[in-house]
């Protein structure tokens, strides 16, 4: 077997895959944050909690109603996205005339409440969610063993990320969204219902988080803190990519996942801080982020 810089290839590719998986979640979550921030100008601090809700609602669906994984992939984002719509209508929409910090505080408070409720209801030990039978097992690629479900996570994330990018950058509806991000007043003066668009955009961003939560359920144990652990890193990813940039969020998400994976191979001691070190460096040289637009 060949070796690279004294690293066995199994370890290298294993960590690369792990990096890609983490990157899949970073990309999905930072994409949702970027879409929401672009139109609402709000940093959605409850994004991690909404990701966790996605995993829990999938678990509830399977355990209580017998809804299988594949059904959950469709239904859960709709259900959790609807809670997002309600939250935007009842609470966030009351804050648009105030400083953006109020939106951040509101969503941060909501995150604590949601996590607290789930901790009370389900404890912190975590609930199991099994891999769907079609994706159990794995494939031997010769140089490494590839678990099928993990490959699916990467593919599903890529499809959803690309689909979202396409919808925003290449369709009529996306043109409305980009225009409203730039000048909501004028878009309203053309007869477009901007408040409804904002509501649906928030719902969509939340649905993306919930979709990531369903994907995560079979990999990580379903527990109330799963979002809080992940979201800190995702915020760093968003800062590095640049607030509000769709493509930036996707590319940085996958890229940083891989960088983190490689750090685990070459200098494991730094793996948990690698992303934050990159964030500090990017902030020093490009305060608006790698793909961010300077206002």
């Amino acid at each position: 077997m060949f070796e690279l810089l004294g690293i066995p290839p199994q370890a290298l590719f294993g960590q690369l895959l792990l990096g890609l998986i983490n990157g899949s979640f970073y990309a999905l979550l930072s994409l949702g944050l970027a879409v929401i921030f672009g139109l609402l100008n709000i940093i959605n601090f409850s994004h991690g909690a909404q990701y966790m809700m996605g995993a829990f609602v999938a678990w509830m669906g399977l355990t209580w109603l017998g809804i299988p994984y594949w059904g959950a992939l469709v239904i859960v984002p709709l259900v959790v996205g609807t809670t997002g719509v309600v939250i935007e209508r009842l609470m966030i929409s009351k804050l648009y005339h105030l400083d953006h910090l109020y939106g951040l505080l509101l969503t941060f408070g909501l995150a604590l409440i949601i996590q607290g409720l789930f901790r009370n209801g389900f404890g912190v030990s975590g609930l199991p969610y099994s891999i769907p039978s079609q994706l159990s097992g794995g494939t031997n690629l010769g140089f490494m063993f590839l678990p099928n479900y993990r490959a699916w996570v990467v593919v599903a994330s890529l499809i959803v990320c690309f689909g979202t990018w396409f919808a925003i950058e290449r369709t009529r509806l996306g043109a409305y969204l980009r225009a409203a991000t730039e000048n909501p007043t004028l878009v309203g003066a053309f007869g477009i219902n901007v408040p409804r668009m904002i509501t649906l955009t928030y719902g969509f961003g939340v649905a993306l988080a919930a979709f990531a939560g369903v994907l995560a359920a079979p990999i990580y144990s379903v527990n109330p803190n799963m979002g809080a652990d992940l979201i800190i890193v995702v915020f760093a990813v968003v800062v590095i990519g640049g607030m509000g940039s769709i493509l930036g969020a996707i590319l940085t998400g996958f890229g940083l996942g891989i960088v983190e994976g490689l750090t685990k191979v070459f200098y494991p001691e730094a793996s948990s801080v690698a992303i934050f070190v990159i964030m500090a460096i990017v902030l020093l040289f490009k305060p608006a982020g790698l793909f961010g637009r300077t206002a």
Partner: protein
Amino acid sequence: MADAARKLDTSSSALAVRDLQAWYDESHILHGINFDVAPGEVVTLLGRNGAGKTTTLRAIMGLIAKRAGAVQFEGRELIALPARTIARLGIAFCPEERGIFSALSVDENLMLPPVIKPGGLSRDDVLTMFPNLRERLSSQGTKLSGGEQQMLAIARILRTGAKFLLLDEPTEGLAPVIVQQIGRTLATLKNQGFTIVLVEQNFHFAASVADRHYVVEQGRVIDMIPNTEIQTNLGKLHAYLGV
């Protein structure tokens, strides 16, 4: 203006504005604007900088949160309606800053305003009217020259089917040849039955396209001059506008 004019029968007007007041935060900008626009007319609002012309258009369009008075469009009261509803009734607005979206291509900018009623110009009609745009359709909207951006800003609202246009200083900062082209466009639109309210600083341009002129000063309409009587009123106009 006489009190009789305030109660004037508005049924024959496309737009009737009565005692329109508007505020930005605490500052009171419009102090009672009164004017009428008949169907098919081109009417200008003339006045010095800061007189309240732009604010008048924005208040009609529902873009100023604090406003009072009456704005009747084809018999419907607009004063309490949001901008999107006003747009859906058939009023199209072209802002002074043109409002070309940098995140959209020229084509996307052109196709952005939704069609609100039948009878608007087709995409092809519009591109025939503004041939420069046809070659730049895939460019980023804000990469166009100032004149092209102005044409795009007018072009995109002609597709919507709205026949009542509010144009805020369409000639501002443009080369004379472009100003002439916009003048010809407005004449064509008038022939096609569009009704136009035009805010202008360029008095000569205004005189070349409009049927009547309203003079705005300190948030009030202080005079109305038909374009046919403009020669006999030049001295008065120069005094109003300080030109």
